[in-house]
């Protein structure tokens, strides 16, 4: 069981900054995120796009914002459970919560801060009537264990970076790799596109465009897919695996069933005070919450995180009184033993 002071659901900018504000109060944090890397939407959707409304940054790339936040919080040694989705929450008799992920990892904390953005990112599933019947029986929406494909026939569908990159990677693992895309053009890094072209010329990737997979065949396990290539009769490709890679989309998901008040796909919170939900000890901050006048901006998430940490401190230490200190005055004491502080002025006579 992972134990911490504040368990943060969601490692986007708001969740990451919470670690800093909590750290100033000597509270430790652990973050859970369904994505394999921190940063949330900033890393998953638009890492190379600029943001212009982060105070004091006239312009910053979303990926750099994530990098900077990770640097800013590192002395507070946050824990991460990445690539797992927070599924259930149970309140204990002592007032703490146990949050369990889809992989069974358990986390315990007296305070839970949901910084879940628009929800957890789930793969977008193509509209093929019987595809659900073959999930984990030859249909995989993301590649977790490349060895699964050793010496197998594999069909990948999609036109973005992940379809290109995995097609390239699997040529060294799988018996055969077929890449199917609705267009002749691919959207990806130039060197990935060129590498696929090269592998196609070498006969290592069977490229079928413009085409779409219309059906999955098999009994217990995938044995083939039906492909419709523009201007041709539909045909069957024998395959052991079908991997549709059409990107990820956020879904509020299991959090919707945590007994929290939901409005417009967001969690209602008390914005007059501390961004607490209708369940004491569970807070919601950033894009995932809603209150009168809510704006889904990163800078608003930072503010909400800061006030939420004050309330969390009171909940964890009901008998202590906290006096806010400027970091310029108090410095920053990391859990790793480091200390940041303003340089001291020297008092020395000049001869």
């Amino acid at each position, binding site marked *: 069981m992972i134990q911490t002071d504040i368990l943060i659901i969601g490692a986007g900018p708001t969740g990451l900054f919470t670690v800093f504000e909590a750290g100033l109060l000597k509270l430790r944090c652990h973050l859970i995120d369904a994505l394999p890397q921190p940063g949330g939407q900033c890393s998953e959707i638009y890492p190379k796009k600029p943001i212009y409304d982060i105070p004091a940054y006239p312009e910053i790339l979303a990926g750099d914002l994530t990098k900077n936040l990770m640097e800013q919080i590192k002395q507070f040694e946050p824990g991460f459970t990445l690539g797992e989705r927070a599924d259930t929450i149970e309140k204990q008799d002592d007032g703490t919560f146990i949050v369990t992920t889809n992989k069974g990892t358990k986390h315990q904390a007296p305070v839970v801060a949901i910084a879940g953005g628009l929800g957890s990112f789930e793969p977008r599933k193509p509209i093929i009537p019987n595809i659900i019947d073959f999930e984990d029986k030859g249909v995989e929406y993301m590649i977790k264990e490349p060895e699964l494909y050793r010496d197998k026939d594999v069909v990948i569908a999609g036109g973005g970076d992940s379809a290109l990159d995995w097609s390239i990677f699997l040529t060294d693992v799988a018996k055969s790799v077929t890449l199917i895309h609705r267009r002749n053009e691919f959207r990806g890094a130039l060197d990935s596109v060129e590498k696929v072209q090269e592998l196609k010329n070498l006969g290592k990737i069977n490229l079928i465009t413009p085409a779409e997979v219309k059906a999955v065949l098999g009994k217990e396990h995938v044995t083939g897919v039906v492909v419709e290539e523009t201007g041709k009769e539909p045909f069957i490709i024998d395959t052991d695996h079908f991997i549709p890679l059409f990107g990820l*989309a*956020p879904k509020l998901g299991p959090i919707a069933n945590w007994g929290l008040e939901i409005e*417009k796909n967001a969690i209602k919170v008390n914005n007059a005070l501390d961004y607490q939900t209708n369940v004491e000890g569970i807070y919601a901050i950033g894009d995932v919450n809603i209150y009168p006048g809510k704006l889904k901006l990163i800078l608003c998430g930072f503010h909400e995180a800061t006030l939420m940490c004050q309330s969390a401190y009171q909940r964890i230490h009901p008998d202590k009184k906290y006096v806010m200190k400027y970091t310029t005055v108090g410095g920053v004491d990391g859990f790793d033993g480091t200390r940041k502080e303003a340089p001291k002025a020297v008092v020395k006579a000049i001869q």
Partner: protein
Amino acid sequence: MEQDVTIKITDREGVMHEVVAPTDMAMNLMEVVRSYELAPEGTIGICGGMAMCASCQCYVKSNHELPEMNDDEDAMLAEAFHVQENSRLGCQIQMTPELEGLEVELAPES
């Protein structure tokens, strides 16, 4: 108001809404749909209008001449689901006086 246009938006339940959209506020079609709450929050405009999620895909039913697709929109529609000949991303259609009478239907959520 002379800068306003009236457009017809059919929501995902098939209900048609006639709404008034301003042309002087740099609004796009996705934002118009959100401002009238014609699709639940969190199901439209997820990427915020960067042509990176296709949650604002719509079918253009009238014969209006729309701004040409840029590469981002074109590539996104190449990967989206439920795409038809008349598919566009709402976030890439700016409200202009020429769009008076525009008729669109929101594509299913995916």
